[in-house]
């Protein structure tokens, strides 16, 4: 699909404009020219064959002397129709023919040849068929000027624009609407195509009746062209259709396409003698069927618009004709349809039947009734001219179009304010004139009439201002910044928490990943921690992406496994993303943090500075994050049996903040992976409801502190947190810090025992403590731990 500048030139003169600069002008106005190409071929001239002899070493080659204007060249030619005194197309050395075929000086069976005499199909200007091949080289008329550019002489040199249009301006894929845009940017006038023809004495209303029984048709016109002669189309029509990517069939069919590519109004031609004298347009009935042009039987639905002869379906409106009602080689009389249907029906039907065509694509958009009326007459004009048709007088019309003109009033200053440009009055008036928008000026405002061909314009002032702006050129808009109240922007709601947590994790060495929200049904059930009902898509594209996830762990695990496979052994990953579940008729949303670690945290082998990831590192990470959020003292971490089955039952911890569950962490169960991997998932939406207090400076203790060390030997199954609690209790408030500095199990103590060594710090911020009172406290602690846990003191 491309726009031919030769064709556009029929409506607005552009031969004097450089195609590339026109392309950038029209692109700046919003009609995006994606590619400019030319079908012109350099070094292609008209030649005159002066002599033609048989090749001495061949029974079909000829050796010709050809006058190409500046010189006479010897060229070897294989065509049977080459002969002296013929005017031909000569590709000189240097010419590049389609398929990157470069013409060079050469020797053909020992005879020098300085070019090639061509056929149109060799130049890509005609389809290569047996027929065109057998015709041989193209014979030009005797008055062809020797030495001149051959394509220009033939009218085949053309520049083509490939367009990438905004969805509201697809009308510009048609030459007349496109010409209006060219006229607007160049300030020139559009000359409308000739729609004149002679009429017969008959009246079309006597030959066909029309009954439209659906509101989904706003205009339906019928005309009749009689006694048509089906033949090949004239060259210019064939060539122009080819440029547009439409195959030439015969003169009649080509004319319907040609008119569509002019106005953007699809036409449908019926064989009048097959159709009869009655057209009824109605919605299809449920269960109704039609065999279309392509011999397929189609099931129709109640949303399809159907053209019938009163009984039999003739055509699925706007989408495809029926098998027997169309134009054939034997057609004599044509019934021409030019109609506007409800675009939604056309779109629905064409998508449902998988039959989207150039016609249906156009009918899916709102169409101009003016063009609808003109197009049918234009077709009659062309049928009379190129198919010897006789046009029956009159038009049978069904017309429910609201023809009230759309008018918009816009004040001068509004144009300036919205665009940020100071327009002179002449500028605005010139642009409206160039656009072809009729207007009047009253007091301080323009009353602009929107032409019917511009169905894309919504009657509001902003639409008119956009039209003025785009023709004036957005490049002329000066960049400014809004003159509004100064304020500082902020992260709202849980965005702020997300950013804080994200930065903390990065500082701890975790890499952020982003993975897909959509997952398979199977994966969506893994790591189920307080899941709600899973949300399933109505029409998923793939089974693997049919459900919305509720846990971030499966994706983290996949990325970790991928990295292990790549021998990236030390893996520290996190993701923060939203998860969703059904909640009755509504949906619930949570923001989750998930992180995973595996391998070695510190990894510096040559000086054995290594720390292999373990439960305590994971626990420390969780504590770091919660402490960073100011939640120190408000959270508890405890072994839980309420966790997903994918988590190790003995190496895990649930997390509660202010007594409320916010997540968990732990080692992955060996059923999930054989590798040592630790994961954590925290619900940030819950966490944010536990606000931390503001940071306040606390004066540091200036009195000296006293430290004492002690190691207790206790039964292995006693949790260290129980001992810690006891030490704290008996230590009282002078005991300000407790550190565990050694854990020992082994042959120096009994097999069922472990030794835990503590470093205790005593201080008072009002005075210096004495050694005696600290020793008394220390002994009290030892005594209570010994008593409570049957502990003994190691190395004492």
């Amino acid at each position, binding site marked *: 699909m491309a726009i031919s500048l030769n064709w556009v030139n029929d409506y607005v003169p552009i031969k004097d404009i450089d195609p590339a600069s026109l392309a950038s002008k029209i692109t700046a106005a919003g009609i995006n020219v994606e590619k400019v190409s030319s079908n012109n071929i350099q070094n292609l001239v008209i030649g005159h064959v002066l002599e033609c002899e048989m090749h001495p070493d061949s029974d079909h080659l000829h050796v010709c002397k050809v006058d190409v204007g500046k010189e006479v060249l010897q060229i070897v030619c294989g065509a049977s129709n080459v002969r002296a005194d013929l005017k031909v197309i000569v590709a000189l050395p240097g010419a590049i023919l389609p398929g990157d075929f470069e013409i060079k000086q050469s020797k053909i069976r020992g005879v020098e040849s300085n070019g090639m005499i061509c056929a149109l199909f060799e130049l890509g200007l005609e389809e290569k068929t047996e027929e065109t091949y057998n015709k041989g080289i193209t014979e030009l008329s005797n008055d062809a000027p020797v030495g001149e550019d051959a394509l220009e002489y033939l009218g085949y040199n053309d520049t083509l624009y490939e367009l990438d249009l905004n969805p509201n301006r697809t009308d510009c894929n048609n030459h007349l609407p496109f010409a209006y845009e060219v006229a607007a940017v160049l300030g020139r006038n559009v000359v409308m195509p000739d729609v004149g023809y002679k009429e017969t004495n008959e009246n079309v209303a006597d030959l066909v009746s029309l009954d439209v029984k659906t509101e989904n048709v706003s205009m339906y016109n019928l005309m009749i062209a009689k006694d048509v002669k089906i033949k090949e189309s004239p060259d210019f029509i064939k060539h122009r259709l080819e440029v547009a990517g439409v195959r030439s069939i015969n003169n009649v069919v080509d004319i319907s396409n040609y008119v569509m590519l002019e106005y953007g109004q699809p036409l449908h031609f019926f064989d009048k003698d097959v159709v009869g004298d009655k057209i009824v347009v109605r919605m299809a009935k449920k269960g109704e069927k039609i065999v279309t042009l392509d011999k397929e039987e189609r099931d129709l639905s109640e949303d399809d618009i159907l053209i019938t002869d009163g009984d039999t379906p003739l055509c699925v409106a706007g989408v495809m004709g029926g098998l027997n009602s169309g134009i054939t080689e034997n057609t004599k009389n044509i019934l021409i349809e030019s109609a506007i249907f409800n675009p939604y029906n056309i779109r629905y039907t064409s998508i449902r039947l998988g039959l989207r065509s150039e016609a249906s694509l156009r009918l899916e958009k709102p169409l101009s009734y003016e063009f609808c009326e003109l197009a049918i007459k234009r077709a009659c004009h062309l049928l009379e001219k190129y198919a010897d048709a006789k046009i029956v007088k009159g038009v049978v019309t069904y017309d429910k179009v609201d023809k009230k003109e759309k008018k918009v009033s816009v004040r001068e200053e509004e144009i300036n304010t919205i665009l*940020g440009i100071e327009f002179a009055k002449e500028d605005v008036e010139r642009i409206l004139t160039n656009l072809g928008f009729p207007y009047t000026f009253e007091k301080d405002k323009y009353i602009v009439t929107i032409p019917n061909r511009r169905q894309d314009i919504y009657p509001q002032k902003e639409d008119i201002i956009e039209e003025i702006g785009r023709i004036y050129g*957005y490049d002329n808009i000066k960049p400014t910044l809004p003159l509004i109240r100064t304020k500082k922007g902020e992260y709202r709601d849980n965005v702020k928490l997300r950013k804080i947590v994200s930065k903390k994790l990065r500082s701890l060495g975790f890499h952020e990943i982003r993975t897909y929200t959509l997952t398979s049904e199977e994966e969506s059930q893994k790591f189920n921690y307080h899941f709600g009902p899973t949300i399933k898509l109505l029409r998923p594209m793939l089974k693997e992406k049919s459900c919305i996830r509720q846990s971030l762990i499966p994706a983290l695990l996949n990325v970790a496994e991928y990295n292990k496979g790549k021998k990236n052994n030390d893996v520290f990953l996190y993701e923060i993303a939203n998860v969703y579940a059904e909640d009755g008729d509504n949906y619930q949303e949570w923001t989750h943090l998930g992180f995973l670690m595996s391998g070695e945290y510190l990894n510096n082998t040559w000086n054995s500075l290594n720390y292999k990831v373990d439960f305590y590192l994971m626990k420390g990470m969780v504590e770091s994050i919660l402490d960073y959020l100011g939640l120190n003292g408000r959270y508890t971490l405890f072994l839980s049996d309420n966790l997903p089955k994918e988590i190790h039952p003995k190496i895990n911890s649930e997390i509660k903040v202010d007594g409320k569950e916010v997540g968990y962490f732990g080692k992955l169960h060996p059923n999930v992976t054989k590798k040592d991997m630790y994961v954590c998932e925290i619900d940030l939406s819950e966490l944010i409801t536990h606000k931390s207090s503001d940071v306040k400076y606390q004066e540091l203790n200036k009195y000296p502190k006293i430290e004492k060390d002690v190691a207790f030997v206790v039964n292995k199954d006693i949790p260290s947190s129980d001992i810690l609690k006891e030490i704290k209790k008996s230590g009282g408030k002078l005991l300000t810090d407790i550190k565990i500095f050694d854990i020992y199990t082994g042959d120096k103590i009994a097999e069922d025992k472990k030794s835990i060594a503590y470093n205790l710090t005593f201080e008072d911020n009002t005075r210096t403590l004495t050694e005696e009172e600290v020793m008394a406290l220390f002994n009290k602690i030892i005594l209570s731990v010994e008593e409570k846990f049957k502990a003994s003191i190691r190395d004492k």
Partner: protein
Amino acid sequence: MYNDKIKEIENELKTVFEGIKTLNDLENLKVLFMGKNGKITLVNSLIKDVPNEEKKEFGMKVNELKNTFNTNYEKIKEELENAEINAKLNKEAIDVTLPGVKLETGSAHPIERIIESLESLLMSMGYDVVEGPEVEKDLYNFELLNLPKGHPARDAQDTFYIKGEEYLLRSQTSPVQVREMLAGKGEEPIRIICPGKTYRRDEDDATHSHEFTQMEGLLVDKDITLGDLKGTFEEIAKMLFGKSRETRFRPSYYPFTEPSVEMDISCFNCNGKGCNICKGTGWITVGGAGMVNPIVLRNCGYDPDRWNGFAFGFGIERLAMLKYGINDIRTFYVNHDIRMLKEFDRREY
């Protein structure tokens, strides 16, 4: 006679420091001259026998001896100490070419990097960062944005619907704007950006992803112009792609803005001459924008006669692909290789 003694020591001091090789020798020498029975100490004790009128001169001479000794002593001491430290340092030599002990931090995902830089610029210009749900109502994702049911533009945004077609996975972040306007009740000026995940029914390939990230901005206030939008875009373009970037607007179409524009930057690779990144045009499209369509303002409770504004949107993956030279959009979502992520653990300044 004491003069001879002084002379004798004087001469001795001229040579005695030669040959001192260790601090120990030096200390012995000090004892020899300055100790309790040292030569200079002993000479000094002769003062009691010196006639009164010569005492002053004698004293000066002895002091001179002391000074000469001390000056030499300090000098030699420093030299010897330095030599000793140097010897120690030499012994401490290590192989400095062995690798360092690195404590590495983690990295922001490339998408997050782009979002954060946009956020920091736009927050400084007064925009709040706001998020909204990804499971969204059709009403907010389409209807109120001038995309009624059956609108052909819904075609291009083929959408993941959930149950009864009332809910969907949002196809754009625009519904956050709708929510913000509805919350503003037609009275509050609005300045927000809303980065977030969006979803479309696209087959995943090098340039398409069924999940992707958008960041839209919305400003609703009084007397806002298309020029203001251009100026704002220029700030963004220069921040992301360098001060020498030029910007241009091309007319475009979005149902929710009028006028609508495509936002282009001059190609950072060829500076506008034309190359394969800009497909020979010298320009690269980086986003879409426009003045908020009065229909949308009205739908969301803002009176278009009192309020106007602009909205803009960027595809973050596209920005990241351009900025970092990434050719496949799946790089952002599938199989994150740690080595790739680590490349983003640094800052440009």
